[in-house]
């Protein structure tokens, strides 16, 4: 044994993850187009589409206000995932950040995990702001456990939207990704009854909604306030299916990029 062998061969993965997550958080925070939008838009939408009905109740006796909070909470988390990953990944590819990162010892999985943690943190922030707003301004009262349950269900169920974000990020260039993310996500959430309850939407929308991922994702949020219209296991199965589909698309796009850039 010699004293020279003291230098460790690789940096601790935990330290890499911490530094990477922290930098992602700061980067996002400093892009107001992201940080302001993901916090302000759900509150704004809730003000227009939710507040006027805050005090009403659903036929089953649960609060319509809480139902609408769940709707916009689902919209909010999904948008953090789709826009954060979609535009984020496309921008990094555009700036060729990925090329330099690949040459460093940072494992790609740590980089992705940091992005997921970062997105979950922003989703949580946006949920806390929205719920606080609904309580303070809308006067919507629920047990704390209901709100916590809603947050937990929506964060845990956000995986298909992470996958969708990655798919958009790898399929689109940095200039196209924001448009595509909007064109996909807004109609998707609208037709899933996240903006206006499905019962108020035209019949053909009610017909397609049960096939859309955001509809089943909304169910997760509504289930927290006892207003879901399908069994939780059904929602989870649909979300798992969409996760697989979006991951497949993302993986294909990633592979295409790999062979072109690093083949």
């Amino acid at each position: 044994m010699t004293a020279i062998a003291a230098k460790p061969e690789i940096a601790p993965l935990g330290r890499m993850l911490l530094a990477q997550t922290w930098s992602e958080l700061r980067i996002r925070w400093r892009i107001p187009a992201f940080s302001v939008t993901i916090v302000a838009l759900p509150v704004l939408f809730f003000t227009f589409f939710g507040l006027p009905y805050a005090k009403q109740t659903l036929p089953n006796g649960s609060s319509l206000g809480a139902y609408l909070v769940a709707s916009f909470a689902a919209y909010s988390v999904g948008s953090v995932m789709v826009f954060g990953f979609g535009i984020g990944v496309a921008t990094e590819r555009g700036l060729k950040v990925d090329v330099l990162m690949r040459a460093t010892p940072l494992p790609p999985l740590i980089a992705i995990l940091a992005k997921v943690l970062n997105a979950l943190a922003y989703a949580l922030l946006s949920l806390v702001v929205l719920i606080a707003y609904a309580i303070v301004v809308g006067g919507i009262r629920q047990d704390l456990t209901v709100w916590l349950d809603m947050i937990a269900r929506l964060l845990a169920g956000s995986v298909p939207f992470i996958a969708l974000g990655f798919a958009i990020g790898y399929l689109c260039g940095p200039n196209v990704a924001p448009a595509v993310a909007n064109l996909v996500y807004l109609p998707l959430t609208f037709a899933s009854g996240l903006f206006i309850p499905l019962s108020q939407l035209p019949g053909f929308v009610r017909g397609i909604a049960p096939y859309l991922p955001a509809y089943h994702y909304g169910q997760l949020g509504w289930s927290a306030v006892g207003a879901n219209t399908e069994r939780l296991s059904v929602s989870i199965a649909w979300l798992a299916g969409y996760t697989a589909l979006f991951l497949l698309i993302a993986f294909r796009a990633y592979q295409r990029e790999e062979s072109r850039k690093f083949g």
Partner: protein
Amino acid sequence: MLGPNGAGKTTSISLMLGLRQPTAGQARLFGLPPTDRRARSRCGVMLQESGTTSVLTVREIVDVFRAYYPAPLPAERAIAMAGLTEQAAARIGTLSGGQRQRLYFALAICGDPDILFLDEPTVGMDVEARRAFTASIQTLSGAGKTIVFTTHYLREAEELARRIIVIDRGTVIADASPQELKARVPGKKITLLAGRPFAPADLDGLPARVLNMSGARASLLSNEPAAVLREVFRRGVDVVDLEVTGADLEEAFLMLTRRSEDAP
């Protein structure tokens, strides 16, 4: 590694780093596949075609990169070696092109690597930055680091390298010390102005390489300018003006890389 644009310098670096896969053969770094994290932890990289976020500060991104390496340099040291101390608190987006290039250098060295791969490191650097960069390279080299860099400036290679590998269109055409390489390329440039347009026969078979011939003006590269001129006069070429200067190394080098193309 020296070669004109499109010679394959970046591709070679990419292969050494495992960023591209060779169609045949294999690359090894420290006896490991270059993609191995242990190998990557010992090398620093500055790539031509790469970017980074613009919203972090210099200090912040250096700190993030330091976390990737087992025994990084102190951040201040890496930033100082890159000549960015004054810009440490500045956002990356506000840096000039040359400063950005220095930032990439800081990111390359912040992990205290044993080997540095620098792809065209001085592109976009101003004179001052280039001087600071040269000094840092010499310091690192003196500390026992291996530095592989690409350039298309012979002067730069000559100044910084102990070994120069000239590549052209994917093939190694020379592998020598700067002194040996210099001896191999023509040292003098002869410019001729004639009373009439040159014909190819005027300059055929001379101990020189024709660099340029248009109308009544011609320039040649040679190690024997006296012999060339003697022969030109013997052939009765109506020379009205002539100039013999030390060859521009860039031109001489270009001749070297074009040799295979010109061969009959």
